[in-house]
């Protein structure tokens, strides 16, 4: 679903280089002006929001400070270790479940029992199980992406039309050909969707895990900005997390387009 959204939204943006871009730009400028006004006239509750210019100032000196970029580094490492582990284990498991009915009958119920548990509810268990705090955060990120990729791969494999398998076997393909030349490429679109959606969820899980149990990282820094009452940096932290998340999703989508040249031209 996420992938279709991106493609659809990208097409929207591509044909927009006229008055509609100006309107978009206008609306963002208006949003900032509104933000300034709201704080200025002390609207109840919103008055302790930082001014836009304070946030800009906060962003400027954050860009200069080493710890800020260090925070980016820690978060990105955590995301990639957990995310990639989830794909390495999830994709083969999903393929196995999608292909062999009996394997799925045994494993899917257990999988379905654990899937609805929100990833962040695993925090206490993760801390108990893993020796170091860092490993438990990797585990939580893993949980965030794992269930999503497995579900998408199972769906991907089962959606491959049976006539493609028959066509391959009638051309003399043996099971190993069918697996590598039909099933894997055939479920690639769903794998990419699973990774894109998974990336979105993993960032959420990472932020919460960092705020609750992590040392360092964008989530932690945003939380500490709150505890030391450095309010503008809270917004800077939020925006940096948003940008980091967006970059990762774009990277996954770019990988998807590279892996599926045939898809790009539809």
């Amino acid at each position: 679903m996420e992938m279709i959204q991106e493609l659809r939204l990208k097409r929207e943006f591509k044909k927009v280089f006229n008055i509609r871009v100006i309107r978009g730009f206008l609306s963002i400028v208006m949003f900032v002006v509104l933000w300034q006004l709201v704080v200025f006239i002390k609207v109840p509750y919103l008055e302790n929001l930082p001014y836009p210019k304070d946030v800009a100032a906060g962003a400027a000196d954050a860009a200069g400070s080493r710890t800020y970029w260090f925070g980016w580094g820690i978060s990105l490492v955590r995301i990639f270790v957990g995310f990639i582990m989830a794909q390495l284990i999830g994709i083969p498991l999903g393929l196995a479940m999608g292909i062999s009915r009996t394997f799925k009958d045994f494993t899917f119920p257990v999988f379905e029992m654990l899937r609805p548990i929100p990833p962040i509810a695993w925090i206490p268990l993760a801390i108990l199980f893993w020796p170091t705090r860092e490993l438990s955060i990797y585990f939580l990120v893993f949980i965030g992406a794992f269930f999503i990729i497995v579900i998408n791969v199972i769906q991907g494999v089962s959606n491959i039309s049976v006539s493609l398998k028959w066509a391959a076997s009638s051309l003399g393909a043996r099971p190993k050909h069918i697996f590598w030349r039909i099933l894997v490429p055939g479920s690639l679109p769903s794998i990419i969707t699973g990774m894109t959606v998974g990336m979105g969820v993993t960032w959420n899980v990472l932020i919460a895990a960092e705020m609750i149990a992590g040392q360092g990282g964008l989530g932690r820094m945003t939380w500490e900005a709150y505890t030391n009452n450095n309010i503008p940096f809270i917004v800077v932290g939020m925006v940096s997390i948003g940008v980091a998340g967006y970059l990762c999703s774009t990277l996954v989508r770019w990988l998807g387009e590279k892996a599926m040249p045939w898809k790009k031209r539809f």
Partner: protein
Amino acid sequence: MSRNDGNGVLSKGDFGEVRLEDVTKVYEKADQSQRVLDECTFSVERGKLTVLMGPSGCGKTVLINLVAGYEKPTSGRIFIDGSPVDGPGSDRLVVFQETALFPWMTVYSNVTFGCQVQGVGRGETKERAEHILKKVGLYEFRDKYPSQLSGGMQRRAELARAMINDPKIMILDEPFRGLDAMTRQLMQEFYVGLFEEIGRTNLFVTHEIDEAIFLADRVVILTFQPGKVKAEIEIDLPRPREFHMLASPRFMEIREQVIDLLYEEASKAFAAGSKAAYDLMGAIVARKGACEKCE
């Protein structure tokens, strides 16, 4: 499987012949069984194009799966060149109803997939691919993906992929479905030319009456459930077939004969209330009482 060398093109004598004897297929579903094919007996002569026709629900596709070897008949036997069928083989090649080009492979890798999986040498594969792609006029499109081709070109690529393995028998399940009538007619002319050039044995399934008569040496019409051979019509139109034959009196005569046979089956299908047949006869029979054709 004997194969003379050169570019692997079988000569007339090598093409296969299919013989069905009292082929019956019954599907067991929970407690009730459904008889889909009932003692079908007909043969697909060597080097001839035989068309299979019948209302939807007469088991055409099931019959193809039996000849191709994907399913086993409940009783009766199917012979290919005298030996019984046991499972799919590359001597019989099926082109399916839904487009079965692999969307993630270029035209070239689609067409050469058969050779690659059977371990044919790179040189020979390349040579055969060029030969067949030029024949279907897709040589300049060999690096394109299926999504970049028009409907007609996709069908030609599918045919090329089937023919490159030089099967003894070509089995085609409505290969030109979904094309607009214009492209469809041109594809029919193209395919009949191809057939007349090599003379490979063909089992061709369609529900388009004109397409059946224009292509076939013989048309086999199946009855509605269970599928049984209702009639076999020899098409004595001269070869090579030209498009203006479509307007010849003999063509129209055969067409009328086929329509009568199909109408009879369609009315039975309607009586059986099968949804697909509902609209076949629905309004007409209801409003005009028993139509004179059906007596």
